[in-house]
């Protein structure tokens, strides 16, 4: 019986069907980038919300405090940074949530591709459509706060570098809380302490630019924080997603 023809045919088919793990990680990462960009482009409100929040907060401050340019210029760096940080935080909760709800996330976890790399792709899209627009918008809002002209470039650059770290760190929290129905508050509590170094050096860079001091040291530390986050966060995000899905 084992040597009968149908059995043999079945064996060869099985061999063809059986697959060794193969590459294709690059293709999967590109496809994930493209898919997430497309998704966010189709749900523009999700992209616009943090930007509108940022603009609203910064518009209200001169009205609420005082229109005095000198006073505003002193608090502007911290104000812009805090508002941008909170805007980025607001958008984090949705990073993995819709994927979790419609079952895409379990498919992502079951793909034979490296999960940290796929998670990094998702975070990259989040930064491209949240952190980067916030950084580009900040100088415009800086004008409203009478920020001295020489510090615009530093403001944008510090926010671009810093918000990338914020996205990476925040994604760990988002991954940990994705299984909870109301994880928003917990997410903020989890990641805010980790945001503080970024905030200190980010706002510090703008402050230094205003006082005409060297900004290189601040920006270098922001860059170093980003480098550390880039190396460690993808693995932490992947592990957090596994914990959330297993629960």
């Amino acid at each position: 019986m084992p040597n009968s023809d149908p059995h043999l045919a079945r064996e060869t088919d099985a061999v063809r069907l059986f697959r060794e793990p193969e590459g294709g990680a690059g293709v999967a990462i590109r496809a994930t980038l493209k898919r997430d960009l497309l998704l966010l482009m189709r749900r523009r409100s999700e992209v616009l919300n943090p930007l509108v929040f940022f603009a609203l907060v910064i518009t209200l401050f001169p009205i609420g405090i005082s229109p005095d340019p000198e006073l505003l210029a002193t608090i502007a760096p911290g104000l812009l940074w805090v508002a941008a940080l909170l805007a980025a935080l607001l958008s984090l909760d949705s990073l993995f949530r819709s994927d979790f709800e419609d079952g895409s996330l379990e498919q992502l976890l079951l793909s034979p591709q490296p999960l940290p790399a796929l998670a990094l792709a998702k975070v990259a899209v989040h930064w491209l459509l949240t952190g980067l627009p916030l950084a580009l918008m900040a100088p415009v809002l800086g004008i409203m706060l009478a920020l001295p002209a020489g510090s615009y470039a530093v403001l944008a650059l510090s926010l671009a570098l810093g918000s990338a770290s914020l996205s990476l760190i925040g994604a760990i929290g988002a991954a940990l809380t994705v299984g909870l129905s109301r994880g928003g508050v917990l997410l903020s509590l989890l990641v805010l302490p980790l945001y503080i170094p970024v905030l200190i050096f980010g706002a510090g860079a703008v402050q230094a630019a205003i006082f005409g001091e060297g900004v290189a040291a601040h920006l270098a530390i922001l860059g170093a924080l980003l480098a550390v986050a880039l190396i460690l966060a993808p693995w932490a995000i992947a592990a957090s997603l596994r914990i959330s899905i297993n629960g």
Partner: protein
Amino acid sequence: MSLRLQARKLACERDDRWLFRDLDLDIHAGEIVRVEGPNGSGKTTLLKILSGQLADFDGELYWNEHPMRRTRQDFLANLLYLGHAPGVKAALTPLENLAWYQALAGEPDDESARFAALSAVGLVGFEDLPAGQLSAGQQRRVALARLELIPRPLWVLDEPFTAIDRDGVADLEARLAAHARRGGCVLVTTHHELADTPALRRIRLGQGARDAEL
């Protein structure tokens, strides 16, 4: 190399209740294994354990005679899992949804294959509509198109017949049988009665059943 998924002394406890205990499974190529049981008897949990998604259980899993822990990458490259949630993005069209799954599976980007898969599940003419505008059954069909699109020997399907119409059910049943004939292996939970074929095996889970196997 043929495929074989084994479980030894599988046990899972949820909320102080044993869903199953001492469950031994041995699943070979060419088999359709139907997991049966009333609601809440742990069918989905068993499928999630067997597809390596849950770590919270007792017992051992073996993939091709090797402990699952060490062959996970190899296992995932051969697995196609379809869960309760279809995993279809409402804002994307069926074609875009499938494009992502194709890339995620490490398959080459092939638009004609995606069209073929969609036509196999009867979605011709709906390729470019956002999936959110499709009916629940059609969305499920988008998910089922992955069975056509991505060649994998081991299918783990959790309630694949949900929301599918009668013709679709017959089609899907034929597809499962064809997959088993080709040397694939299907692990399925469903309340739909599958036609008896030599390839079909049943595993019954009951409320705290101990000797569930066969």
